[in-house]
């Protein structure tokens, strides 16, 4: 396996994973696969693929303007590659946007529903138009090699200049409007990034980083396919880029100084450190390298400067689109699915890029590529003991295999657990504490209910009334607490321990003691609890148990109290308030427990096993079944 093949194999694997994750995102929804939240509505897709991605694709208009408008013929050799890079860059951003939209099939709505005050409306229109322009600019290249549709190719080549003009005009608008989008967040965006000059900063940084991205792509292709590098021409492009990058840095510094926010950069906070890193690698490092002629003309210098510039400006955009956008609420850390989709979109774009580079004439002077020579030898796979055919066929075989295995692995990883994808926090309910007055607070947040247990018992008629609420107890027990079975604070809990009943502690029951042999074994077709545990459900219990799942603690508590309370509120004069939440749920109180108990209970991970109490003498339990 050569370099290119290894590289492509990895990319295919990531793409396969992303396809699986993308399918999960479409089927189960955003909440199931992402960590996006009401506090962080935009995540890695916006902060990595869309906002920085659009900047990195800016070479499409910058370099074409240099070639066709400023008529710098020496860069003409990069005309096709820069258009391709921009085209794929915009497709990447658009795909990520589709993944991120809640209703992706409505993505065309800005065409018919106009709202010209919105920067996003403007951006979406421009991106749609510019994608069309880029497509038309790119179209002649593939047509060239097929030889068909020559009329279209000639027409598009003839009016190339019109497309270039449109490209520059549209790009100027949406590159800057992307910055305008974040003008609306003066209170949320950190002071080091918020500026009324954001549109200008976005435009200038895009102009600076577009050519750097092109240089990076050219260097990568050269490294992968051993294509000779024209360092002197790249150096000219890089030099111009450095000037714009310097301008960007200057505007930022002057703007910060003018608004008196420069001090924020040195206050030692996390944001300040991020700012310093961003400014150093994004502006200072590339400008410093590229201003030295010898470094600018060296491969290493170009590599470092291009990577630093791309990363730095990318980080700048990511900071504005997410990292430094303050929200109160759950902290956002992207899930593996989000990262997978994000990288998968990029991988697919790189694959498409390499495909075009291998397939079409992207340079005016074709270089000798051993892979394209007709004599290329078939490869022999020692493991499978077969000839793989020509490299192209061999590649096809390997890539498709890697792709489907990765896709299947992705489908296997995706959690189909309903509770997990519904985002409900699984909290073990804490039993009520206290004596005559119980404090019922299953999640120990202090907003519980002081329940006058003794008063209720007295009012309802003493011990005979126990079974009104205590509708079921563990074997050998009379009054199991509510949280014993209703152990999930917000989720229903399985009270029937299958493995326990089948094990030695549960009597080594065989399957057919509960499951009929002629039917499929399932919870629905099995015996109910009270068929074996005759004493489990007390006589005259108001609540009957029909299933093996105990409703959540919250549901159980509300269910047992509210019904009665609402009745009484209607029956008794002057007791209307009984039906109100605040009658039971008062102010937060923590004093009923000794200090530190909250923390103690919060941290203890409760054993989820329901253990039957050893004391007390019940007569018989499940063993007398049959």
């Amino acid at each position: 396996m050569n370099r290119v093949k290894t590289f492509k194999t990895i990319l295919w694997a990531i793409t396969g994973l992303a396809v699986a994750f993308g399918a999960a995102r479409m089927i189960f929804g955003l909440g199931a696969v992402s960590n996006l939240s009401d506090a962080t509505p935009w995540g890695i897709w916006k902060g990595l693929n869309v906002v920085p991605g659009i900047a990195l694709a800016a070479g499409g208009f910058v370099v074409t303007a240099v070639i066709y408008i400023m008529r710098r013929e020496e860069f003409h050799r990069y005309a096709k590659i820069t258009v391709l890079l921009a085209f794929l860059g915009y497709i990447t951003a658009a795909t990520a946007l589709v993944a991120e939209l809640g209703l992706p099939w409505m993505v065309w709505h800005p065409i018919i529903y106009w709202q010209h005050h919105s920067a996003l409306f403007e951006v979406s229109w421009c991106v749609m138009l510019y994608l069309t322009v880029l497509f038309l600019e790119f179209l002649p290249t593939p047509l060239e090699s097929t030889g068909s549709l020559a009329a279209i190719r000639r027409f598009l080549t003839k009016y190339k200049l019109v497309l270039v003009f449109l490209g520059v005009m549209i790009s100027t608008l949406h590159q800057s409007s992307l910055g305008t989008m974040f003008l609306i967040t003066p209170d949320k965006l950190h002071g080091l990034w918020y500026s009324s000059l954001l549109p200008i900063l976005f435009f200038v940084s895009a102009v600076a980083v577009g050519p750097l991205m092109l240089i990076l792509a050219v260097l990568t292709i050269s490294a992968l396919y051993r294509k000779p590098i024209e360092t002197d021409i790249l150096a000219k492009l890089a030099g111009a880029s450095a000037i714009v990058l310097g301008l960007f840095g200057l505007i930022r510094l002057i703007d910060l100084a003018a608004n008196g926010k420069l001090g924020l950069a040195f206050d030692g906070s996390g944001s300040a450190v991020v700012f310093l890193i961003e400014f150093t690698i994004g502006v200072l490092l590339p400008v410093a390298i590229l201003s030295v002629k010898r470094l600018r003309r060296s491969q290493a210098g170009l590599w470092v400067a291009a990577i630093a510039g791309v990363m730095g400006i990318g980080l700048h955009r990511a900071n504005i689109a997410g990292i430094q956008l303050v929200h109160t609420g759950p902290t956002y850390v992207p899930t593996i699915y989000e990262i997978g989709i994000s990288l998968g979109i990029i991988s697919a774009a790189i694959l498409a890029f390499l495909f075009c580079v291998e397939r079409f004439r992207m340079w005016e002077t074709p270089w000798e590529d051993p892979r394209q020579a007709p004599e290329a030898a078939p490869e022999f796979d020692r493991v499978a003991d077969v000839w793989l055919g020509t490299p192209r066929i061999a590649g096809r075989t390997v890539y498709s295999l890697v792709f489907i295995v990765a896709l299947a692995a992705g489908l296997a990883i995706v959690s189909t657990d309903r509770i997990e994808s519904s985002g409900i926090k699984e909290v073990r309910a804490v039993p009520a504490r206290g004596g005559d007055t119980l404090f019922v607070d299953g999640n120990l947040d202090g907003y519980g209910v002081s329940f006058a247990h003794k008063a209720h018992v007295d009012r309802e008629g003493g011990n005979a009334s126990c079974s009104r609420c205590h509708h079921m107890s563990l074997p050998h027990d009379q009054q199991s607490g509510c949280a014993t079975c209703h152990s999930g604070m917000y989720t229903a809990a399985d009270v029937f321990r299958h493995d326990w009943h089948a094990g030695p502690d549960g009597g080594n029951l065989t399957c057919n003691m509960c499951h009929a042999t002629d039917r499929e074994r399932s919870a629905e077709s099995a015996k109910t609890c009270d068929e074996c545990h005759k004493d489990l459900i007390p006589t005259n219990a108001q609540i009957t148990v029909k299933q093996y799942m105990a409703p959540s603690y919250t549901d159980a508590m509300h269910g047992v109290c509210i019904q009665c309370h609402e009745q009484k509120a209607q029956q008794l004069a002057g007791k209307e308030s009984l039906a109100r939440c605040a009658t039971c749920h008062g102010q937060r109180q923590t004093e009923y427990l000794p200090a530190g108990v909250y923390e103690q209970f919060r941290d203890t991970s409760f054993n989820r096993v329901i253990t039957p109490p050893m004391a007390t003498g019940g007569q018989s339990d499940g063993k007398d079944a049959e």
Partner: protein
Amino acid sequence: MKAILTDVTKCIGCFECVTACKTSHNLSNDVPRKWHRNDGLSAQNWSSIVQRPDNHYVRKQCRHCLEPACVSVCPVAALITTNTGAIIYDPDKCIGCRYCMIACPFGIPRYDWEEPVPYIRKCDFCHDRTTRGLQPACTEACPNGATIFGERDELLSEAHRRIAAEPDKYLDTVFGEHEMGGTAVLYISDIDLGFLSYPARRETPALPETTHLAMSAVPPTFIGMGALMGGLYWFCKRRDALAGKDKDKS
């Protein structure tokens, strides 16, 4: 222009408004989910009560700004201001970009994260009730008159009247009178309500104005860039032609 005035000192925290809101909008039961913020609002709770120290209960709901950031940023006009001042949402237009959630200075709009077909959820000022001449479900349900419904100017003068009557009891501000360009949901309170918004800003211009200049510069920029590029093209072509002539001569 309708409004809601909430008197924080009168609220007893009975949650009747929250329950009424849920009932009138057919919202299902809610449990804590990983994407919730801790203020009680969610896709199933469009109105909540934030408990503050010393028996203070503060209603939290959409503020229905007079110059709403969410309406100005929505790319498809799915959020609009009605003539009663309510900001309502059209799910048929929404594309799910969630820009409104980014833009809202009070952090109100919530999302149906668990749904494969999700929508923005927020208080709609009981638009269908108010158009039928009823008052919103929450103000109707309040047993203590802590939150009331009416014309905005009347409620404003009522708020100022209460503050003037008992200056020791209230802070000397009507929250929402000028905040973010003014909101339709007003508060008077004995505690500071800065926690209801992102870093509190008062008497500031409304958020849409921050993008207004940039957005109005869009058409001139488009034409200007075209003209600039045209000029540049002409200049470069001329330069090349002259250079070519020189070359021919020499």
